[in-house]
């Protein structure tokens, strides 16, 4: 059995790390969310990653999830599963928020499954 010496192992790890980091950079670029107005969401594919900005219009009670609507002239529902205290703090009625997440069709209606919520500022 060939035993890797340290010098060879260091080089192999370095090459894998360089290519791996480059691939992750590419993945991050590919998965970049599309900045969209809410009215444009209907034209996008289900499952695509989007980023919408607007004010929090309504907040609904749900078990283990935070469900709210974002308004920018049009409405869209957003869902955060297991929200953190910080996210609850951001999602308050009237606050301007940026919601990043994936588009989903739920009972014939488009909604965003939020992955990140950014507050004002």
């Amino acid at each position, binding site marked *: 059995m060939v035993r890797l010496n*340290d010098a060879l*192992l260091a080089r192999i*790890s370095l090459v894998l790390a360089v290519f791996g980091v480059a691939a992750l950079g590419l993945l*991050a670029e590919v998965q970049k969310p599309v900045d969209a107005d809410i009215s444009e969401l209907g034209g996008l594919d289900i499952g695509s*990653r989007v980023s919408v900005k607007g004010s929090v219009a309504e907040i609904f009670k749900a078990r283990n999830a935070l469900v709210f609507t974002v308004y920018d002239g049009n409405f869209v529902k957003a869902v955060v599963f297991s929200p953190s205290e910080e996210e609850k703090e951001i999602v308050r009625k009237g606050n301007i928020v940026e919601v*990043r*997440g994936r588009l989903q069709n739920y009972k014939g209606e488009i909604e965003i499954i939020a992955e990140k919520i950014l507050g004002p500022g």
Partner: protein
Amino acid sequence: MQELFYALAGCIFGIFTGIAPGIHVNTVAAFAVLFAQKGDMNSVLFIVCMSVVHTFVDFLPSIILGAPDAENFLSVLPGHRLLLKGYGHYAVQLSVFGGVFGAMFSLLLVPFYIGFVSQYIEMLYAGVPVMLALVLALMVLSEKRKKWAIAVIMLSSLLGIFVLRGNIASGNQLLAVISGLFGASTLLYSLRNKPLLCRQKICESRYNKKEVVEGSLLSAIAGGFVSLLPSLGPNQAAFVLSKVMGKIKTTKYLVILGGISTSNMIFSFFALYLLGKGRTGSAVAIGQIAVLSPESIVLIAAAIVFAVGFGAVATEVIGKWLLRRMHKVNYRKLSIVVIAVLVCIVGFLSGAAGLAVFAVSTAIGIIPQVVHIKRTSTMAFLMAPTMLFYLGF
């Protein structure tokens, strides 16, 4: 009574996360958040006790199980050095002393900490990018193999920027990075080495009281300081202390290492209370469960005292037990099982993208071990995104 039950359960889980190489306390804390009710103080006490006990027991695998072979003798950590001379028990006890006295000094320093935070926190935050840049520069300058150090810092920085600030799909990507950089990489690399076994002397040892008190006090101050600085942890604090103070004796260094991890963990709970931000994985998890009130922070302080006592006794008892039987442990089999568990946990919590991040992090984490540079250089994965954030990017 219920609180005591959760605290005790936390202590037992702390032993588990501390002793199982590669299973991080943050992993269990992330799981605890999934199952906790919002505002549930019992879950908070569970995480507090688990995290504090973890900082004690955590030294056992690094001192005992990670026994290196004769080839990399010179690069081994201070605890290993004593283990190889048969003084593993002495190394364990020094780290426990550091933890106990470090915790005691930390709790005594809390009033000063609160005063410092309310007066100087803004000034401290303004200096974060410069401080982080200085620590990174110091890391490179302290290495003999500077090119490798620069390569590891650059790769870790890019990894952090892409994963933590980029848009890689949902899931716990931080867990994937930490498990790869510090868990799987260590275990994979250790599979190559044949542990060097040595009969251990388990007996009452003599201690330099001045060294223990000085080391613990220093560690409490350093632990408090890093608990306020984003992306800096106990290892960086110990590294900076060793550079600032010049040559530190191995025994004192072990006291400092033991003290800093416990102090940093303790202060991170107070930082969460004061600033509403968690600087350790455990504090972040607690922040996701509850908003801390003055009453809850008093309860947390009581839990800390309980966990410190439990952690010290557990580490001494388990340490002795392991040291007497270390030659019987099949480290190779244990490592393979833990790697498999890590892959499953990352896959479950971080998804397919997380597994890719985990693989890349593992490759980066192997490099410092192979080329014998300090592994703290991989912490650039947190430091670089933090610097960018504080610079306004």
